[in-house]
C-alpha cells in the first residue's frame, strides 16, 4: 500500500482533479450519438440544448452521490454505507413506479410527476427508517442500517406489485437502471441548488465528521452533540440523494467507491476529503455518462449499468488494496 499524500500533495491533487474535470467536461461535449465537427460545436443546438445540460447534470449528480456517501459513511461509522443504505433507493423506486404507472405524462407545476414522486417517496422512506430506528430517544447506527434493510425489502415487494398490476415493466425498469437521457436545463436548475447548498453544509460539518472518526462517545467528549449532528447530516444526505435520484434514477456505486478511493488517497480528514470527493465524483460521473452515450451509439446504455460494470470490480480492487500487507 502506498503512503497517503500529505497536505500539500492533497491540495495539488485537488488542482489536478480540477484541471482534469475541466478537460473531461469540454471533451465530453464532443461525443454523442450525433457527430458534430469541432469547429461547429459552439453553434450546435444539440450541444447547447442536449449535451451541455447533460454533462453539467452528470457532474452535479456525481457530487451529490459522492458527498452523500461521505456523510453516511461518517455518521453511521460504516464503510459499507452508501447513499441508498437508509432506504432512499427503495422509496424513490416505489414513488417513480407509482407515477409512471399512473401515466408518467402528468405534469405538476411544470415538472413531470415522476421526479417529484421519486423525491417525496425517497424522503418518506428515510423518515420512516429514522422513526423506526429511534429507540429511547436515541438512534444507534446499527439500528438505522437494519431498519433501512427491512424497509428496502418491504418496498421491493410493493415495487414488484406495482409493476405486475400496471404492466409497465419496461419504463419502470429503465428508470431503475438510472439514466441521464432526460437531462434538460430545467433539471440542471432544479438540482444545482441541492448540490451547492448541500456541499456547503457538509463542509461546515467537517469538524464533527472528523471527531466522529474516534467513535460516538469520544466525539461527545470533544464537545460534539452526536445525536443532533447525526440527524442534521442524515437529513442533508437524504435530501441530496433524493434530488439525484429524482432526475437520474438509481445510479449505484458512485457513493460507495468515490469516498473509499479518496480516503485511500488522502486519508480520512474531511476537510480534504469533502472537496476532493466532490471533484472525483463529478469527474467519474461525467466519464461514465460519456461512455454511456458513446459505447454502443446510437444505442444508449443506462449509466447505472456502466457504473456497476466499472464500480463493482473497482470496489473489489480497493478492498484488496486495503487488505494488502506491507508498508
Amino acid at each position: 500500500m502506498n503512503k497517503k499524500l500529505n497536505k500539500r500533495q492533497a491540495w495539488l491533487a485537488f488542482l489536478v482533479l480540477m484541471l482534469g474535470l475541466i478537460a473531461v467536461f469540454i471533451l465530453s461535449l464532443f461525443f454523442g450519438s450525433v457527430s458534430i465537427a469541432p469547429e461547429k460545436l459552439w453553434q450546435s443546438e444539440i450541444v447547447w440544448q442536449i449535451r451541455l445540460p447533460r454533462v453539467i447534470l452528470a457532474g452535479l449528480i456525481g457530487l451529490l452521490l459522492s458527498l452523500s456517501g461521505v456523510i453516511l459513511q461518517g455518521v453511521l461509522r460504516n464503510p459499507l454505507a452508501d447513499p441508498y443504505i437508509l432506504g432512499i433507493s427503495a422509496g424513490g423506486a416505489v414513488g417513480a413506479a407509482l407515477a409512471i404507472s399512473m401515466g408518467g405524462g402528468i405534469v405538476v407545476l411544470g415538472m413531470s410527476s415522476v421526479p417529484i414522486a421519486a423525491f417525496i417517496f425517497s424522503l418518506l422512506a428515510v423518515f420512516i427508517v429514522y422513526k423506526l430506528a429511534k429507540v429511547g430517544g436515541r438512534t444507534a447506527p446499527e439500528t438505522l442500517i437494519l431498519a433501512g434493510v427491512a424497509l428496502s425489502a418491504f418496498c421491493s415487494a410493493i415495487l414488484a406489485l406495482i409493476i405486475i398490476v400496471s404492466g409497465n415493466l419496461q419504463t419502470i425498469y429503465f428508470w431503475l437502471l438510472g439514466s441521464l437521457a432526460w437531462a434538460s436545463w430545467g433539471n440542471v436548475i432544479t438540482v444545482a441548488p441541492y448540490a451547492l447548498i448541500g456541499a456547503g453544509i457538509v463542509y461546515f460539518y467537517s469538524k464533527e465528521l472528523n471527531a466522529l472518526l474516534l467513535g460516538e462517545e469520544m466525539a461527545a467528549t470533544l464537545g460534539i452533540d452526536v445525536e443532533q449532528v447525526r440527524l442534521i447530516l442524515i437529513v442533508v444526505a437524504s435530501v441530496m440523494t433524493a434530488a439525484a435520484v429524482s432526475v437520474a434514477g438509481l445510479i449505484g456505486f458512485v457513493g460507495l467507491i468515490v469516498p473509499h478511493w479518496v480516503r485511500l488517497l488522502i486519508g480520512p480528514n474531511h476537510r480534504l476529503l469533502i472537496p476532493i470527493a466532490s471533484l472525483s465524483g463529478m469527474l467519474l460521473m461525467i466519464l461514465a455518462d460519456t461512455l454511456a452515450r458513446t459505447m454502443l451509439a446510437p444505442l444508449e446504455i443506462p449509466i447505472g449499468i456502466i457504473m456497476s460494470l466499472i464500480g463493482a470490480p473497482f470496489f473489489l480492487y480497493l478492498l484488496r488494496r486495503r487488505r494488502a500487507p506491507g508498508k
Partner: protein
Amino acid sequence: MSILKVEQLVCGYHPKYPVIKGLSFSVEDGQFVGVVGPNGSGKTTLLRALIGMVTRSQGSIYVSQYRLENLDRRDLARRIALVPQLMEPVEGFSVEELIMLGRTPYFDRLKFDDKRDRAAVRWAIRELKLQDLKDRPVAELSGGEFQRVAIARALAQQPKVMLLDEPTSHLDIRYQVRICKLLRKLRSRRSIIATFHDLNLASRYCSRLILLKDGELVAAGSPENVVTPENIWKAYRLKVTVRSNPRTRKAKYVLLP
C-alpha cells in the same frame, strides 16, 4: 480550591438500578487520583458520569466552580478530557493528525488548526516523547505506543482534569510503569483521575486512592491509608498482608497463601 467536587452522586444506566450509590469526594489541583475496586464496582461508570455521559439521578458534580449541567459541551470538553480504555485507531491518520482531533473543542466552523492548535499539539507530542512517531500511521503502532498517542490526544485538549479508564490494562509491565510515571509527571498542572485494576501500581504512583465496592465508597485517602488488609477484605474478600516498600514507603499488598 477543588477542581472537581462530587456530592452524593447517584447514577447508572437505568433509574431503578443505580451503579454509583451516593458517592462524595473532591479532587484538588495537581492530584493523581487512582480509582480502584473489584469488577462491577462502578469505576468506569464514575468516570463516565464525571464527563456527563451517564445520567445522574441524584447529587451534583462541580467542575471548578461550575455545576456540570451548566457547562455547555464545548466548555466541558475544554475542561475535562477522557482517555477511554480502548480507543479506536483511525485508519489513515498519522499520530499528529490523530492528536489534532483533541483540539476539536477549540475549532470554529471554518477555523481549524491555527497557530495555537498546532502549538498545543506540538507540546503534547513533546510531553509524551512522540517526536519520532509523529508521522507514523496510527494503525501501525504497538499497544503501548498507541496508549501514549491516546494520552497525547487528551492532553492536546488542554483539560484541567484528565480522566483515564484503565490506562495500563493492556500493557506490559515496563509500559505500565512508564505510563504511570508519565501521569505522575503530567499531574503537576492539572489533576488526573484514573481507574486501575493493579492496586500495587496505583498505590505506588497515585497521590490519592478511592476504593469502591458496589458503587459505594470503601475508603479514600492516601495510598497507605487505603491499601490496608481490612479495606482489601471489605472490597475484594481477599486475605492479604500489606508491606511498605522500604524505599518508596508506599503500601503494597501481598496475597496470603
